[in-house]
Each structure stands twice: as structure tokens, then as C-alpha cells.
């Protein structure tokens, strides 16, 4: 029994160590003074602050970072607002077209972006939104996942609570804002987090719709980083590290919601 416990601890330390090795390599190369050592095994001084200073002093990284933040926070807030309203209504209110809408949401969950990007691009082009923020943001603004997540969560709101409010004479919008939204808070935080992380990683759509460097978010910027004048391997790695910081902070702050979002559907009966 004792030997088994020790063996298990050793295996876990080795496995988790291997899982962290590339992260360690990132830290080492991102802190290097120059490009000469790319092994990522041994720290050669700690030049991370200077490297970050270089990236923020010249080049486009601050622009990419700003664009990504605008994109992710902007669409994240909109997704939370619209999904909260629709998810609650679909779970708790009876109105014409409810079934059709639910079928539409479930249907879109199954679609792959590879099918949609071509016609959505043509629509965005028709609207004159190519190379604009609204072109990058609007098509990814609401996710079927979000509406579905809120709906599943809103099914758990006790009917009596809503009924009591109605008997007291509260209007439906007031009930939604004052009773439902506070109860839905955990689901809405989870949705914001999932949305933010997914958009932070979104390369395909901005790549298609934004050709102007001024508009690029981080994934597109990083893809073109090597071709920027004077940018080298260790600074590219520093840029990758900077890109990883906001998701990391969010994850630390909202760890519980992150796990809840990841396991949604996996644990539900």
C-alpha cells in the first residue's frame, strides 16, 4: 500500500513535469538576452522585463493586445447579455416560436465553422464590413453554446419564485432583471470565461476578414511576427508569453467557473 502511494506520486510528478516542460521552455527562451540558445533548458540571466519593454516600445504587439482585448471583452459582454435574455426566456417563458428557436440553437451547435466562413464572409462583404471591427466582432457575437448553457441553467430556477413575483404584480422584464439574472450569475460568469478564451484563440475569422495590420488581434499578429523587421526567436517567445498572461489571470481568478465550463455536458445526467 505504502509503495503504491509513493509510486503514484512519482508517476504524477514525472507526468505533470513533462506537461509543464514546454511552459518552462517558454519562460527560459522569453527571458533570454538574445537568440543564441534556443534549447529552453537553462536560464541565461533573466531579461524578461527588458524583452517585454522592447516589445512594448516598438512594433505592433500593443496594438494586437488592444485589439484582442476589445474583441474578447466586447463580444463576451454582448454574448452574456443576449444569451442571458434568450436562455432565460426559452427555459421559463411560453411564447410563440419557442420550439423553432430551440431547434435552431441545437442545430447550429453541430455546424463546423469551415462550412460557414465562406457565406458569412460574403454577407460581411455585402454589409461593407470587411476590414472593420464590426466585421470581426458581429459574426462571433452570440454563441449557440452560450444560449444553450444559460437555458440549461435557467431550467433550474423554481417556478414558484417567478409565480410569486407575478402575483405581486412585477412585470416580466423586471422579473428577468431582478430575479433571474442574479440567480444565473454563475452560468453567466462561466459563459464569459469560455467565450473570452475561445475568442482569444480565434485565428481563422480575423485572418479572413481583416487584412489591415491595425486591426489584427494577437493570433494573427503572432502568425506574422517573424516577418516583422528586427523580430527574433526569443522576442517571438516573449510575445507568446504576453499572449498567455490574460487567459492565465482569468483562469486563476475564476478557476471554479473554468472547470464548470469545461465539464458542462460531461457530468450532466
Amino acid at each position, binding site marked *: 500500500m505504502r509503495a503504491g502511494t509513493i509510486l*503514484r*506520486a512519482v*508517476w*504524477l*510528478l514525472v507526468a505533470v513535469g513533462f*506537461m*509543464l516542460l*514546454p511552459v518552462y*521552455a517558454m519562460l527560459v*527562451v522569453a527571458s533570454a538576452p538574445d537568440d543564441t540558445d*534556443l*534549447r529552453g533548458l537553462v536560464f541565461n540571466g533573466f531579461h524578461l522585463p527588458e524583452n517585454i519593454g522592447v516589445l512594448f516600445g516598438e512594433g505592433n504587439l500593443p496594438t494586437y493586445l488592444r485589439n484582442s482585448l476589445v474583441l474578447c471583452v466586447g463580444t463576451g459582454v454582448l454574448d452574456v447579455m*443576449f444569451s442571458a*435574455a*434568450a436562455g*432565460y*426566456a*426559452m427555459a421559463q*417563458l*411560453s*411564447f*410563440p416560436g*419557442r420550439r423553432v428557436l430551440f431547434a*435552431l*440553437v441545437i442545430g*447550429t451547435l*453541430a*455546424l*463546423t465553422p*469551415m*462550412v*460557414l*466562413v*465562406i*457565406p*458569412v464572409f460574403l*454577407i460581411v462583404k455585402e454589409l461593407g464590413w470587411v476590414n472593420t471591427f464590426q466585421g470581426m466582432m*458581429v*459574426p462571433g457575437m452570440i454563441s449557440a453554446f452560450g444560449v444553450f448553457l444559460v437555458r440549461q441553467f435557467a431550467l433550474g430556477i423554481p417556478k414558484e419564485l417567478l409565480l410569486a413575483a*407575478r402575483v405581486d404584480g412585477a*412585470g*416580466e422584464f423586471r422579473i428577468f432583471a431582478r430575479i433571474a439574472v442574479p440567480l444565473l450569475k454563475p452560468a453567466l460568469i462561466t459563459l464569459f470565461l469560455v467565450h473570452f478564451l475561445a475568442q482569444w484563440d480565434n*485565428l*481563422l475569422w480575423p485572418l*479572413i476578414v481583416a487584412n489591415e495590420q491595425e486591426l489584427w488581434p*494577437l*493570433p494573427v499578429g*503572432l502568425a506574422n511576427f517573424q516577418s516583422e523587421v528586427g523580430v527574433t*526567436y526569443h522576442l*517571438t517567445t516573449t*510575445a*507568446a508569453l504576453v*499572449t*498567455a498572461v490574460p*487567459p492565465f489571470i482569468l483562469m486563476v481568478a475564476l478557476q471554479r467557473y473554468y*472547470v464548470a465550463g*469545461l*465539464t458542462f455536458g*460531461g*457530468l450532466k445526467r
Partner: protein
Amino acid sequence: MSVLGRVRARPQATAGVALTLPVAVFFVVFWLVPFLAAIYLSFTDYEMAGTPNWIGLANYERMFADPGFLNSAWITVVYTVCTVVPTIVLALLVAVPLSKPGRLNRWLRALVMIPAVMPLAATSMVWVIIYSDHGMANTLLGLVGIDPQSWLTSSDLAIWALVVMVVWKSMGLFVIILTAGLQALPGEVYEAAAIDGSGAVTTFTRITLPLLRRTLLFVLVISVAGSMQAFVPAFLLTGGGPADATQVLPYYIWANAFPYEHMGYAAAMGMVLLVAMVIVSALQFGFLKGGDE
């Protein structure tokens, strides 16, 4: 009551429509219409410039004579199988001991989240360095006497370089999901098994795996779907090369649609990918449902 019911029904209907209208309009404009348009485009010769002409099944026939498509479809199959299976097996091997209580495990569970939240673009840039000539991969293999390789520029190795990176990236996520699933399993079953003198292997195959089936199905479905639509690793690490060796289907569709503007043809390939994904998902659900009896 019936009067009260009627009085209540109207504001509910108004509020319901008002609260869902933005979402309904959005889904029609950015999901339903594009989906129908994609079906239509797949039967045309649309090339961005000019108007679409109906050409019937010609795009679908062309696909099965197009070496580029056949190559991409095959690479996608290899890539999907070789990323999904090792990821789930390895994640399970880590998650089972990791889900046990203890202070060390609590720390390790927090650490496992770090690779899981690494953005894919950042991950790809780091692995470009790891796979470079004097990078970590060659250095570590050198310690066990393996000659340095050109991971990303060799047409034999590039796909495996991608696979290793993706396995690493998804493992973090799946360890978290599986650990949460394992921690939700009822402890009494394990106590009963221990009293009956069940060994670790028997407990795992007879108790843990069956109880974990729903979580495993979830992980399997999302990882297969993720691998079948994976675009970013091929785009960032290898650009589909060398010599199309890592040109997965999503990459080939993107390349046809945007740089080359063969939108009709790309739409048809997108449809084939969608149908393949639906069939594969249905098979997975059927397979795991079938095991319920």
C-alpha cells in the same frame, strides 16, 4: 384561475419574443442563411469575382479525382486518430491518480491548468522554438543518442510534430475534465470494492471506466470534432507543408476558399467535412449507448 392564466399569458409572450428576438435574428442572419447559402454554393462554380453558375454535382465529382482533396482527407483521418487516442489514454493515466485526495494532488491539479489555458497561437510559437534545429526536442533526444531531426521541414516528421504538440495541448484540458468526472463518482462503490478485495486494475476496468462512461463520451466527442476541424496548428507550425504533408482538410478548404477564391469548390468540401463529422459523432453516441445494456 383561467382568467388569471389568460392575463398572465400575454405579457409572457411579449417578454419572451422581446428577449429572444435579437438572438433569433442573429441566428437566422449568421447561421441559417449562411448554411443554406453554403449548400447552394457547393453546387456552383462561384469564384468570388463573377456570379455563381449552377453546375450540379460537378464539385463533388471533382473532389474524388482531386489528389489534393484525397491527400487532405487521409491526413485528417491519420491526424484525428493519432491525436485523439493517445490524448485520452494519457489523460486518463494522469487523471485517475490525480483525482485522489491529498495536498500534493491539489497542487498538481492547479499546475495542470497552466498548459490547458495556454492560447493555441502562443503554444504554436513555443513549439516552433522547441522543434527548431537547436531546440529542446533535439537537445533532449540527443541525451539518449538520437540524431537531430528537422521536425517541421521533413515531410515524414512534420505531421508527427503537429500530433505531439496537439496531444500536449489537449491533454491539459482533458486531465481537468476527467479529474472532475472522477471526483464526482460515488465514493461508497470504491469502499465496497476495497472491502471485497478488488485490485487496482479490476477496480479501474470494472468500476471506474463504466461509471466514467458519460465523461469519456463527452471528451471523445469534443476531441474528435476538434481534431477534424483543426486549422490553427497546420497554419502556424507548417503552413500545410512541407509538400502538403500536413495539409489537413480544414486547411485545404481555407486555402481553396480564400487565397485561391475557389469558393464553390471549397463550400462543397466543407459540406463533405460536415457530413463526415455528423456521421462520426452519431457513431460515437451509438457505440457508447450500445454499451449501456
